[in-house]
């Protein structure tokens, strides 16, 4: 009978034994030391008795915990050495493309008694962790291991590394199920169809979506996908799943059979790390009770694919298509109202038009004027508002605002029409707005004013007012008339304008010549003659030989002429009163004039009273001075 005993121990790399750090008392340390060294003593005794026992065969084998793994997930590599008396060094394991990290060693010494002695052998297991950064097939090459002073080799070992998603086969529970749900199997070109992408993931898996899925498919346009909804858990085939729904809507753009999808939903799932000791079934990730514990789980990105769904698309019928059909398909209602209800010709009426319903609102365009005669319309602005609860934009209200200008007398608001195709009845529908009363004042403008509001003439001494800005940020439309041709050169720099200045210049010169060369008029001639007569009379008055009647007659005539020149009256009709009035406050002159007129009357009509032979020198001087003063004052006319 052979008796064997085995001592298991674990060593650190240098093989030393240490007191536990917490056991610092002398007694405690001695007890621990005795316990440890006691084992060695027993082993030593048994070893001494084994001398002469035959040696066992040495075996060196390498093994992997799994031959297939995914990127980033470690695999355990073990080098097992059996039948050795001792193992010299830790084998140095390397392989191209793989990271191999030594994690520990286990030794097992066994003793065998009998057969002429005692034999002991050591079984040592070196453990490594192998990780790959890239997928592919790797080979861990044969590696030399020194055992009892002799070199032994491990056998080469293969490892297959797959991408993360390929791990689905390994982790089926983490893999989700994706379905594409299309509301209709048959539709019309342009019809907007709701689509749902549903993702089912085992409810025991801790997971989160990473990105919005992309729905592929030729010949369709897709609405922007809103945030997904998570209605809760559902049971399929006896398994509870978390459900995530992505909603969108597609619009087929061509007739025929088209595929909606496939699609791919990406999410992160918490999957457990592989255990280090021993192989483990890939199907027992939930049995260990450690799933969900982040210490033992790692986050893995999983892509779940959904199969395409076929959709049959019919073309829109050609017959019965309204002229203003813009491609709207669905079911709509239309209403319009305008304000103000009383305007002048040329003033804008703002029409507000609402189209509500369900359909492809991106193809809903502004309604058209049924009868544009007498109206001038401007490009409308459109705003779409989704209904509450409709995240995709299938149903809602599109509102258009449009400025229309009556160019003639009108009694009703303009009537607009909107047409669409109803896929349920498979017919075109034309909706017409209700005409509301409108009062338009004023006469028909001779020239249509293109601006929504009257604009000041270019020559007005104030800047032309800017027309009201459009309600949206869109621009006003093009103008039909090219308008008059103009030049960028300023008018005053153009040769034709400069040449035109010759005309008024010539006119000016002619006018001046005419004014300067024309004959004096009768008044001027008469004044001139009076002035000449006055000068002659004054010269006669200075003559000392003149008789008194001649002297006073001449003096009175001078006063008359001076008065006539000043007042424009006839000299012969001027009497003493008129002349004196002109003398004004100059009493000395007025007295002389009175005296002159009185003396003339006396000499002419009474014939005496004065010395008729001569006029004294003093009288002559006094009268002449007064008349010259009077003449200077009034004789300029």
């Amino acid at each position: 009978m052979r008796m064997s005993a085995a001592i298991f121990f674990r060593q650190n790399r240098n093989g030393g034994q240490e007191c536990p750090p917490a056991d610092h008392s002398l007694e405690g340390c001695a007890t621990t030391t005795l316990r440890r060294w006691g084992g060695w003593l027993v082993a030593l005794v048994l070893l001494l008795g084994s001398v002469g026992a035959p040696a066992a065969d040495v075996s060196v084998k390498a093994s992997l915990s799994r031959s297939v793994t995914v990127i980033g997930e470690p695999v355990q590599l073990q080098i097992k050495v059996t039948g050795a008396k001792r193992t010299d060094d830790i084998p140095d394991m390397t392989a191209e493309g793989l990271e191999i990290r030594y994690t520990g060693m286990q030794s097992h010494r066994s003793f065998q008694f009998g057969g002429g002695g005692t034999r002991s052998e050591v079984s040592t297991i070196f453990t490594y962790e192998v990780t790959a950064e890239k997928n592919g097939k790797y080979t861990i090459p044969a590696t030399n291991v020194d055992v009892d002073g002799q070199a032994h080799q491990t056998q080469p070992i293969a490892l297959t590394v797959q991408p993360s998603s390929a791990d689905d086969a390994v982790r089926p529970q983490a893999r989700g199920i994706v379905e594409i749900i299309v509301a209709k199997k048959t539709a019309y070109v342009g019809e907007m169809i709701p689509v749902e992408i549903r993702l089912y993931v085992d409810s025991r898996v801790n997971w989160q979506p990473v990105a919005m899925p992309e729905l592929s498919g030729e010949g369709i346009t897709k609405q922007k996908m809103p945030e997904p909804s998570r209605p809760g858990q559902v049971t399929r085939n006896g398994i509870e799943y978390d459900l995530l729904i992505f909603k969108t809507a597609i619009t087929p753009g061509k007739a025929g059979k088209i595929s909606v999808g496939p699609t791919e939903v990406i999410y992160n799932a918490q999957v457990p790390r592989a255990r280090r000791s021993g192989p483990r079934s890939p199907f027992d990730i939930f049995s260990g009770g450690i799933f969900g514990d982040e210490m033992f789980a790692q986050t893995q990105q999983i892509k779940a694919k959904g199969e395409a769904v076929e959709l049959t698309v019919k073309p829109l019928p050609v017959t019965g298509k309204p002229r203003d059909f813009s491609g709207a398909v669905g079911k709509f209602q239309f209403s319009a109202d305008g304000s103000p209800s009383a305007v002048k010709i040329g003033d804008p009426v703002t029409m507000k038009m609402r189209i509500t319903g369900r359909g492809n609102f991106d193809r809903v365009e502004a309604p058209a004027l049924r009868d544009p005669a007498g109206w001038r319309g401007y490009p409308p602005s459109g705003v779409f508002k989704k209904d509450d609860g409709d995240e995709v934009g299938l149903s809602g209200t599109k509102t258009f605002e449009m400025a229309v200008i009556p160019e003639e007398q009108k009694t009703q608001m303009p009537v607009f029409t909107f047409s669409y195709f109803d896929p349920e009845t498979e017919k075109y529908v034309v909706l017409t707005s209700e005409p509301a009363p409108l009062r338009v004042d004023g006469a028909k403008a001779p020239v249509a004013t293109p601006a929504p509001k009257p604009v000041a003439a270019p020559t007005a001494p104030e800047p032309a007012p800017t027309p009201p800005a459009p309600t949206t940020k869109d621009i006003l439309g093009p103008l039909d008339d090219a308008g008059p041709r103009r030049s960028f050169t300023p008018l005053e720099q153009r040769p034709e304008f400069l040449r035109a200045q010759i005309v008024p210049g010539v006119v000016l010169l002619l006018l001046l010549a005419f004014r300067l060369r024309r004959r004096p008029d009768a008044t001027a001639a008469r004044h001139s003659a009076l002035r000449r007569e006055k000068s002659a009379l004054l010269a006669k008055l200075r003559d000392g030989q003149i008789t008194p009647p001649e002297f006073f007659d001449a003096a009175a005539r001078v006063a008359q002429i001076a008065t006539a020149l000043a007042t424009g009256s006839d000299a012969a009709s001027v009497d003493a009163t008129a002349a004196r009035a002109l003398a004004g406050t100059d009493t000395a002159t007025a007295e002389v004039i009175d005296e002159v007129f009185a003396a003339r009357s006396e000499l002419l009509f009474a014939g005496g009273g004065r010395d008729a032979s001569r006029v004294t020198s003093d009288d002559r001087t006094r009268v002449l001075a007064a008349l010259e003063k009077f003449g200077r004052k009034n004789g300029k006319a």
Partner: protein
Amino acid sequence: MAKPEITASRVRRRQIRSVATFFTAAGRRLHLAALLVACLLSFLPGRAHGAAGPFEAANRAYEQGRFSEAKIGYEKLVEAGEWSANLFYNLGNADHRLGAPGRAILDYERALALDPAHPEARANLEVLRQLTGAKRRAPLWQDKFLGWPAGDAWVAGGAAAGWIAIFGLALLFTAKRGEKTALWMVTAASLVTCAYLVAVLWWQHQDSTTAIVVAQSTEARLQPADSAGLAETLPAGSRVQILRERGEWLYCMLPGQKPGWIARPAIERVRLSAS
């Protein structure tokens, strides 16, 4: 026999009568003034457009959404010299639809250069300036008093006022005493009007060096080199005044009232030359 009494008030009445006589005569002269103004206005531009067909074809292309084709049509008319405010306005619309806001703003500016009161061009220009954030010089006090949208009619009006003032001055030397007061009033009013219009036109002609940034955005440099420091970033449609030209670089007064250098391809002058 009672003779009429000639008093100072009577003299004044006669003077007033003579002024009335002047205005009667001036009424006759108005024919002359009207002839003068008509003569000046006859030289205003406004010839009939000889490119109605191509213009309508371009309009049709625009209405059918073929904006590139419409733009080509409008540009051919521009090259042919068939310039009108409406042509540049429609071209601006086409450029806007083709996603070239800087060029569209340039077109609207050209439309306004030809017709300063063009209401649609003004409205669209405002919309695009808001869209692009185009920069402009801050308004000055001269803009407030002299910044009217003066067109050719203002030039003709200024010239007419000038001639009326010259005629008035000339007639003052030969007019009778009673006519002179009214003549002075008319002459002075004409002189003031003429002087103001000349000032307005002088201020407006500062725009002859205006250029618009047609690139989506450009950077004005402190020196004429790409590696020079940044003077100002100019979004599409920004307005600058060209001060000097140096090869491929233009020295400009920037909207921030600082000078800077701009690469020639990034901007275009508003006013086209006849050549």
